[in-house]
């Protein structure tokens, strides 16, 4: 088999195995309420860490000012309970406009 196919299949199998952890364990083992609570909280913690690193970093370094500025605008809009569309489009537009203006 071609090396690239092996890479793709290994990555697919491993990723699917990770994704099966929850559905396979569910119903088989009784998860105590405390663990369920931690799983829910953990998901939020992961999502916030993703958004923080996604907003501020790129390839292990600082992502530049345009992207964090856009995400900050999103945060302000979401805080003011703006509609979802406004939050997301506002962020992308802010970042795009800053880049047009020469801010990296």
């Amino acid at each position: 088999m071609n090396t690239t196919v092996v890479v793709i299949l290994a990555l697919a199998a491993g990723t699917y195995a990770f994704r099966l952890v929850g559905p396979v364990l569910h119903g088989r083992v009784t998860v105590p309420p405390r663990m369920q609570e931690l799983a829910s909280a953990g998901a939020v913690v992961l999502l916030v860490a993703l958004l923080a690193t996604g907003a501020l970093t790129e390839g292990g370094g600082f992502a530049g000012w345009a992207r964090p500025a856009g995400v900050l605008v999103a945060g302000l809009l979401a805080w003011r309970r703006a509609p979802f569309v406004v939050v997301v489009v506002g962020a992308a537009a802010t970042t795009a406009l800053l880049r047009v203006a020469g801010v990296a």
Partner: protein
Amino acid sequence: MRSVQRTSGEPGTPDDRGGARAGDRAGARSFGRSPDRSLLRDSSLVWLASGIVGVSFGAVSVAGGLPLWVPVLMSLVVYAGSAQFSAVGVLLAGGGPFAAVATGLLLNTRTAAFSLAVAEILGTGRAARFLGAHLVTDETVAFALAQSDPVRQRRAFWISGLGLFAVWNIGVLAGALAGGALGDTARYGLDAAFPAVLVALVLPALRADARVRRCALLGAALALAITPAVPAGVPVLLALAGLFLHRRPARKEAAV
């Protein structure tokens, strides 16, 4: 999170007027005029953004010299944006197959934690669980957990997940066929759209629960601090250490 969110809607705020509000999709949804339509509208925005990223993934892969079937097959069976980009990046840079797989898997480790969080949401049938598992992504988990009741959580997961899978794969195929026509997607500010989606979806949970807020802040700070020093994928996992701040509420123990 679910039980906490149910109480997070502020009574008296006219949140039905403008349809779904990012800040309070938790509140009073069963009385909303058409919750599914707002769900579709919010999801479609994420589909659009993902579709464009998919186009760029297809284009980048083919422009880098990989045959068309590589990005297409990878998107169908791996189905994880950041892991696909990094794996192809390693392949194109001549980093070797082992490094490509290891990097991609490291990035996807978090889906194990996500799958635990949404296990109950997927459904009970064998097909629902095995098919649903493949649709566990950052976006679908965020969408599902942002809903207030179990029925809506399941609907949000499947609607956003099936749409995302379709659009992502169509986008990748289109990009692989079209090549570099779209140019640099950073020009459209799309790199800011994804963190923004997450902001809109997690903010209600953060507002409602001070314990989760503390954990998330500590986790994000740890992830940011460690980012320059470790491989991609590790910082986000390390953020789970923030859960150490998650104390059991005292009143619950008293209630037993």
